[in-house]
């Protein structure tokens, strides 16, 4: 993932991971700072700070700067270690994971980290018809694209121009697929 940051002094845009300056620096180990290759000004590379990453989860929207820090989330496949499971089923799936067999399980709305868009595929077979009709009335219709806004304390998704909050257990019953190529369906 290429993440660029811009120097706050001279505005030069560079990739902190590729800067050779750090590798030759004797104070490199454990250092969170990065020097601008153009002017030499030291800036904080938030991506290297554990504390900054933790704090960013408390500061919604204030994820580092647009071009430094966290990867651009939309339009990319999301990392698999984000997989979360419903309250009752966590153990069940861990068991599968131990055998390396969990991969074939359907991707659910609960597995999607905030900021990503997914397409609704369908519903788990054990969902009650009333619940299903209710979810569809809220706009969770197979074929529609939704964006996950948050997963804790509840799953909040954005459908068209409205937001819907649902419990994690319910999000677990909604099957989704990731954005591949192409635009959102109308």
């Amino acid at each position, binding site marked *: 993932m290429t993440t660029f940051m811009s120097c706050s002094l001279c505005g030069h845009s560079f990739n902190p991971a590729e800067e050779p300056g750090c590798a030759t620096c004797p104070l490199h180990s454990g250092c969170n700072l990065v020097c601008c290759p153009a002017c030499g000004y030291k800036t904080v590379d938030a991506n290297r700070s554990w504390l900054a990453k933790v704090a960013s989860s408390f500061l919604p*929207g*204030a994820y580092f700067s647009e071009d430094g820090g966290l990867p651009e989330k939309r339009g990319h496949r999301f990392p698999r270690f984000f997989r979360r499971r419903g309250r009752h089923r966590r153990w069940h799936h861990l068991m599968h994971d131990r055998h390396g067999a969990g991969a074939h399980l359907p991707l659910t709305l609960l597995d999607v980290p905030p900021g990503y868009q997914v397409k609704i595929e369908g519903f788990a077979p054990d969902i009650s*018809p009333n619940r299903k009709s209710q979810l569809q009335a809220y706009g969770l219709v197979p074929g529609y694209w939704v964006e996950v806004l948050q997963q804790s*304390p*509840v799953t909040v998704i954005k459908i068209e121009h409205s937001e819907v*909050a649902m419990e994690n257990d319910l999000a677990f019953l909604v099957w989704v697929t990731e954005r591949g190529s192409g635009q959102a369906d109308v």
Partner: protein
Amino acid sequence: MHPSNPAQTGVLTHGIALVGHPNVGKSVIFQRLTGQHVTISNYPGTTVEITRGMAPSLEGAILIDTPGVFTFPSQSEDELVTTRVLLNEPLQAVVQVGDAKNLRRSLLLTVQLAEMGLPLVLVLNMMDEANARGVVVNHQLLAEYLTCPVVPTIAISGQGLNELVEAVKSADHPHFRLTYSPEIEAALAEVSLRLPEAPITSRSLGLLFFSGDPVSETWLREHLDQRQFDELCEIRHTLQLSFVEQLLSVIQRTRLDYVQKAAKATLVSLGADVKKGPFDLGHLTTHPVWGMFILAAVLGAILWFVGIFGAGVLVNILEEQLFYGIINPWVIDQVARVVPFPLLVDFLVGDYGQWTMGITYAFALVFPIVTTFFLAFGVLEDSGYLPRLAALSNRFFHAMGLNGKAVLPMVLGLGCVTMATLTARVLESKRERILVTLLLALAVPCSAQLGVVLGMLSAISLQATLIWGVVVVLVMLTVGWLAAQILPGERSSLLVDLPPLRLPLLSNVVVKTLARLEWYLKEVIPLFLIGTAVMFVLDETGLLAGLIHAGEPLVAGWLGLPPEASAAFIMGFLRRDFGASGLFVMQSQGLLNPVQVVVAMTTVTLFVPCIASVLMIAKERTWQIAAGIIVIIFPLAFLIGGLLNRLLLFIGWGAS
């Protein structure tokens, strides 16, 4: 209103129903069309509020504002009423209010309403928000798809309402017809011969019945004999056998396909998000950390407005200065002069007199509290914060077998338990409504009581307040958890729409508050008078003194309080804070030590709520449930109080 004029009565019996999702501006449109002439009343047979008002621009037709509904068949008590309105009221037209920026979602409901065959107008409201996001809808084409007029409006500024009035006047029955799978079509043809005459088309009634809608089932039971109804059930059963999926899902899929097609053709532009700053208040309210701070601020503001401004300042002005200072001495004087019988004088203006207790309490004590409460509630309702609060607090209520929607009655309970019992109807299952009612009656102190309790406890120490708080919350969690295990049925997961936060429209809040106050005056004040009469009879017959005497061993022995305190508990049943006030007087006379204050306050908080809320529980749920709740709470409150007394004495708290 002259019943002899047939034209006028004809108009008056025909209503226009406003139907739509929650938070799409139904009430704003309602208020714009009706002005000030509104009445809020419970829908017959339910406790769900229905607002009706005469619309002058529509030749005096009665406009009915129905509870928000997402789809049929609906889930909560609130939503079921909407179906009942459609099935039972003689309607001249139905106006669906939809959200212009969420077209697909609105259309699913439109399709179902159009199938019903009542004259229909679709309002695409909040066009300003849609325009800001760049959503463009070809509404002429949409009208062709739905065979009903489509009117874009911005209700908040009154734009498009004249067009709406014209469209409603000329609205015609839509000839909308979706073709379902051949099996369903065959079954529909079969049931249409057996269905009785209904306000909606037999086709849509049949579809509602196939979808398992409880309201249409009840309606059919009322209009058919047992044999005919069984035949219908048989047809539905046979039809279900031809599908793997539930019928509801099959029917819904056909509708969704059509909605998808119509939306694809008529949505000229999907629009994009409005760019928000990093600190978007809407998102912060559901954030696990910041949401809590916002919640604390909102709760603090409400408690200040209702608890301190309403229950403190306003009550002081009305009760102390106006009633006790000016009105009551004059009334007592007049009654004593005019009425010859001492018993009747006592009944009217004695210690438990209709005027001195019933009317004084209703107008001087409770009226200012409910007025501020209704105002605060109206602002909260219209701001769109409540669903976000439900999302935020979901985890806390999970432990008690409830979902986040229960936060509404619980928080409102801090204002007034009687009012909060009413709002339990937003919950989806009967089990949840009973659970919330129990917890409200048990552990949530109302603002009037809370003021006295906190005043007394903080006079001792912060520690005392904390002990009280921890014990009450622990009891609530334990009882909630236990009751959730015992009560049959499944906990339902939270699913709630989060509307954008908006600044409430002041006129809308004021009109709503006034309409609710009218309801309060009509329904609650008689309860006060009855309660006072009961106390009067108990007092006159000597039963009250007997009850106080009988309670002494419990109060003095088990709770370790002075015997006089038992009178406070009896009074506490009439009004919750009344009991606490009695103890307050005792504390200021130096009759209670710190342990006794903490024990007394905990017991009074957990004790049975006031008579008004018990009557409300009985009215909302049933007498059996009200009785059951009292039977659980009464011993429990004393058990916890006694145990706390023993524990505090054992660890030697407050001895120094």
